[in-house]
């Protein structure tokens, strides 16, 4: 009969004790898993929401005013288009998408409108060096956006839709709703700007921002039209929210020291603060459960040792060494840790999946990697709690089952 068989038989023999011991571990681990699952899913939800807001970082020339994030690029000074390559070749993590822009006010008839040159994705994709940098078809970091292959996130607020445009020929343009109304334009109308004809290929939905007053044309066409050469007035970047909190802005400043880099500060900082708070709560619970869990298990094993004094004495009497006694008790804690870790993961995940939509309005999916962490943590708590009782059990004299005259 192996010692593991002895441990399993003893566990089964004292089922009520086993149940209460396991319950303590399961609940402790369940709380950590539940909070962590909601926290991680919440972070992802925040990241997707930020993605949906579109570009959240703006690179501008040093002298630009940034009073209004959405109109900061209008009539701003310029910098070379090659700055885009600098960002791409730096391979900074968290830069998910980029859009270089050149914006100027122009007069069409009697109307002042804003002309913005943008680089469609198809042109960005045609540049080998940019592909090398990984921006096109880049695998989005799992911590901040849906996994590769997953359906793209749907825009929650269409007014804030500012994502990149796939194709835009040099003779085509998109126009905002205000421009369409003021110039009485429809799709397929021809719009003449500074003597060049553009075909309106799309009327953009109303956003309630300065974008409604914009005409979007191909960047290179606008550069030629305005005679600026390969200059741009801004680069919009979709940065990953968690990376922004990890200092993406300062890293970008290192790459482009003579630029002004700003973000949608309030939105990002609020969301980041929420995530940080969730992480802090997780940590606090983790510390509490480490203490309480270890003490509970220690108490349980200690009660178990006291109940088994005679039995431990028998084992010592028939020749078992102290190390065998330590082994038996730590092995028991290990088994309880494994079972408690698995049960705690299941309980915590089920609780998160059930409570997530009800309390914070997000759909929570199980995080399978937490299973290994749960088991590891549970084993750590259990074994830690068992060390002192095991040591004390080793001190039980082998004649504990005999009566002294």
């Amino acid at each position: 009969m192996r010692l593991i068989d002895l441990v399993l038989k003893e566990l089964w023999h004292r089922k009520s004790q086993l149940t209460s011991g396991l319950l303590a571990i399961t609940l402790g681990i369940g709380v950590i898993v539940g909070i962590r699952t909601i926290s991680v899913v919440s972070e992802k939800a925040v990241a997707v929401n930020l993605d949906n807001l579109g570009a959240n970082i703006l690179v501008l020339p040093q002298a630009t005013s940034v009073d209004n994030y959405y109109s900061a690029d209008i009539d701003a000074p310029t910098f070379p288009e090659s700055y885009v390559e600098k960002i791409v070749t730096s391979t900074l993590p968290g830069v998910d998408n980029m859009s270089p822009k050149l914006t100027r006010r122009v007069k069409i008839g009697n109307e002042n409108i804003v002309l913005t040159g943008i680089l469609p994705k198809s042109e960005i994709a045609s540049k080998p060096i940019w592909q090398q940098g990984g921006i096109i078809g880049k695998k989005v970091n799992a911590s901040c956006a849906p996994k590769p292959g997953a359906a793209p996130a749907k825009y929650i607020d269409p007014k804030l839709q500012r994502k990149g445009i796939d194709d835009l020929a040099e003779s085509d343009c998109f126009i905002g709703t205000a421009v369409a109304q003021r110039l009485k334009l429809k799709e397929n109308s021809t719009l003449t700007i500074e003597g060049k004809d553009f075909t309106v290929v799309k009327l953009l939905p109303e956003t309630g921002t300065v974008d409604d007053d914009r005409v979007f044309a191909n960047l290179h066409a606008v550069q030629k039209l305005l005679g600026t050469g390969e200059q741009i007035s801004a680069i919009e970047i979709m940065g990953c929210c968690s990376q922004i909190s990890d200092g993406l802005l300062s890293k970008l400043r290192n790459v482009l020291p003579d630029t002004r880099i700003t973000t949608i500060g309030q939105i990002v900082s609020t969301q980041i603060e929420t995530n940080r708070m969730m992480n802090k709560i997780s940590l606090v619970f983790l510390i509490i459960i480490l203490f309480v869990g270890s003490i509970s298990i220690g108490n349980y094993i200690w009660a178990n040792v006291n109940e088994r004094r005679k039995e431990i004495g028998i084992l010592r009497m028939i020749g078992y060494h102290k190390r065998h006694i330590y082994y038996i008790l730590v092995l028991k804690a290990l088994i309880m840790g494994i079972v408690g870790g698995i049960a705690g993961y299941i309980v915590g995940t089920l609780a998160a999946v059930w409570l997530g939509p009800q309390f914070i309005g997000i759909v929570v999916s199980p995080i399978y990697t937490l299973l290994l962490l749960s088991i590891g943590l549970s084993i750590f708590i259990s074994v830690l709690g068992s060390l002192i009782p095991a040591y004390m059990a080793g001190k039980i004299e082998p004649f504990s089952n005999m009566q002294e005259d």
Partner: protein
Amino acid sequence: MLIQINNLTKTYQRHDGAINAVDNLSLDIPKGSFVTITGASGSGKTTLLLILGGLLQPTSGKMSYNARELDLLKEKDMATFRSNHVGFVMQSFALVPYLTALENISIALNVKDKDNDKNRKRALELLEWVGLSDRTTHYPKELSAGQQQRVAIARALANNPDLLLADEPTGNLDPSLSEEILGILKDINQKQGTTVVMVTHSPMAAEYGDTKIQLKNGKLHTNEKV
């Protein structure tokens, strides 16, 4: 000589002063003998038995086993000594409650040999020898007192000990069962040549010994060879 003890003393510190449970005692136990130890309560019988079995460290004195002096202070060595050379039979049977008769014997075998199949075969042989081959899967609570003591004897013999120590083995048994258990111990002594040392209150049980020792206040009072 299987065991020689010289000037053995075991002192217990109590609130009202020190008491010598065994007091400067010297004794030889020959191989193959059946020694019975009697004496009033507190005479030091069980303390002496515990020291002989390597379960308790004496305060002073020496003990030799097969002419080799034992380091009674080394706990690890004494555990090995117990598993290799000594079998124990207790008044309260000392069986593990959640293990079957077969498993109670197997755990003793497991200390020396991890071969499960071999240990199981040996445990079955022992149970058959004590007449319990039909009780292998019974738990202690499912066995009568006499049957439990027979399982305890089978366990004590598991590793073929040279020395079998019995502490009041018939203390919890009625007279007919007592005679049955004492008969088994006598058989072990005579047929297998195992040295038996038995502590008892019972004059009837003491009659089974070929050497009768009586202790008084931790000292040897009589040492009578039959």
